[in-house]
């Protein structure tokens, strides 16, 4: 009766379309959307977009920074910040073990990279989330680094760009995770008052607590084609309404048609889109 549906990173399906890994290994890879056999390096040089069907593979924060920023311009901030385990959380595995495994897998301390750099010569503060780190879930580190990025943008009077990729809250930090939603949104409120420009870029997937906080608070909200964007995960909604969901539901184009995304932008155009918006709205 009063069942709270799960609304966290693990609720997001592993893949955007049928297929295997998001960024697979090997010389040849198969597109999960159109099944075409693709030469790995040609997909890579195409910003991890399938040249045949324009399927956008998920990319890591490091790849995102490489794709978006002027070469060599990114200066990371707070790289040493790492998750604590304030609740001593243990499920079938202790949280510290999950953290260690994710750190080993990604080479990152947590699920977001933040820093200063240039996009087509325009200086910005950038935050790029990493879905491969515990589903891009927002714990204290993600919340704190985002809040600091917002404050840095405010202090230095720079545009702020956040590229979201997250399944939502990090359960293992429970209340701490929840409160990061309020903290990041409050920081953006101050940034807004200071007249700062915030460009929010939603990528596959952006759901749960990240969508319901900073990701939806952009002055301009861009989304990559076909990205899953929502509050509740599709499986939860299906369980609640006991119906299959309509085709295209919670995809970037759907969000745009509902009035919650300004523009759907293919990855290859993101740099020019962002720099153009900065020219219109930045200082």
């Amino acid at each position, binding site marked *: 009766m*009063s*069942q*709270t*549906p*799960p*609304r*966290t990173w*693990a*609720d997001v399906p592993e893949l955007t379309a049928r297929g295997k890994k998001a960024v697979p290994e090997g010389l040849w890879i198969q597109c999960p959307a159109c099944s075409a056999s693709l030469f790995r390096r040609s997909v890579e040089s195409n910003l991890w977009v399938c040249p045949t069907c324009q399927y956008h593979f998920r990319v890591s924060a490091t790849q995102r920074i490489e794709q978006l920023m002027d070469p060599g311009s990114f200066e990371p901030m707070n*790289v*040493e*910040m*790492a*998750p604590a385990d*304030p*609740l001593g959380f*243990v*499920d*079938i595995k202790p949280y510290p073990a999950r953290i260690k495994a994710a750190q080993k897998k990604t080479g990152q*301390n947590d699920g977001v990279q933040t820093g200063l750099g240039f996009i087509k010569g325009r200086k910005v503060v950038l935050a790029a989330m990493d879905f491969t780190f515990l589903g891009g879930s927002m714990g*204290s*580190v993600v919340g*704190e680094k985002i*809040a600091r990025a917002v404050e840095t943008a405010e202090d230095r009077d720079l545009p702020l760009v956040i590229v979201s990729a997250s399944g939502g*809250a990090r*359960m293992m930090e*429970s*209340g*701490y*995770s*929840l*409160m990061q*939603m*309020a*903290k990041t*949104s*409050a920081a953006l*409120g*101050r940034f807004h008052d200071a007249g700062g420009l915030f460009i929010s870029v939603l990528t596959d997937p952006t759901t*749960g*607590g990240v*969508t*319901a*906080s*900073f990701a*939806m*608070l952009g002055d301009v909200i861009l989304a990559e084609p076909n990205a899953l964007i*929502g*509050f*509740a995960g599709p499986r*939860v*909604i299906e369980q*609640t*309404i006991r119906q299959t969901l*309509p085709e295209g*539901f*919670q995809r970037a184009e759907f969000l745009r048609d*509902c*009035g*919650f995304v300004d523009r759907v932008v293919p990855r290859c155009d993101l740099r020019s889109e962002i720099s153009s918006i900065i020219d219109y709205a930045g200082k």
Partner: protein
Amino acid sequence: MTKTNGYNYALPFEQPVIDLDRQIETLKDRADANSYAEELAKLSESRDSLLAKLYRDLEPWDVVRVARHPDRPQTSDYISMICRDFRELHGDRHFGDDPAIITGFGRIGPHKVMIVGHEKGRTTAEKVACHFGCAHPEGYRKALLKMKLAEKFRLPIVTFIDTPGAYPGVKAEERGQAEAIAVNLREMSRLKTPIVCVVIGEGGSGGALGLGVGDRVAMLSNSWYSVISPEGCAAILWKEANEETNQAAATALSLTARDNLRHGLIDDVIEEAPGGAHRHRQQVADRIQQWLVDQIRELRRFKGQTLVRLRYEKLRRIGAVARAE
């Protein structure tokens, strides 16, 4: 549902108390009840001490059950017990009126306030209309509209939090559930009027936080507040939600009032007498009222700007991070 001593629905761990209650009732109902006075006194005493014992060391999962008790007072009940001259205000002026969130003017003690709270509904029809306390975007937008009205006239805002979570459905997504909550978080953080919040039952995730950004936040001692429900957490991390994994998840999530206070995520715990708010409605209402009156009196001394700064500093501090090795 007029009975106030909680027999309409028995929580499993309360069964021994309910049995004693039945015995007491049986004796009381007898024509010759007077001749059993001594026995009655004894039974009442052991019933009370049993109840106190059970409620002293409730497991987190049992706290969740108490928080969901169908007879537990809701926002509308507290409004009628605490508030004088309540004037409900409907609608978000854009889409509709979500009954899952109640808003309106009211007087609490010496203060004129704006009240905003989740409502689950009592009858079946009400529950369906309220989606069992799961609000839609228009509910959050209505709440914000009325809170801004309060700010305009510097009325303090009182919120009652009691939701399993914001509604997860097709229409809710189409109308921007995430955006509605996000905007509430941002705007509540900078409303230039005092905001005091009480978690009266369930504090389910973003749907709860959407009314929960305040200068002072308290939880009733048998309420829960967390990023996800125990069942949701169990289903994901334990791969299955059952009695055992729900218990484990409820414990792991640190969702009780005391846990949240210990971690500095809330400011206060309002104690319910042993047996919970569904047995002690007026007493719990009185305690909430006292707490609200005290907090508002204190907060009214601050300028709006100061409140906003202090509220931000409070939020800004929340987080536990380490340095990488």
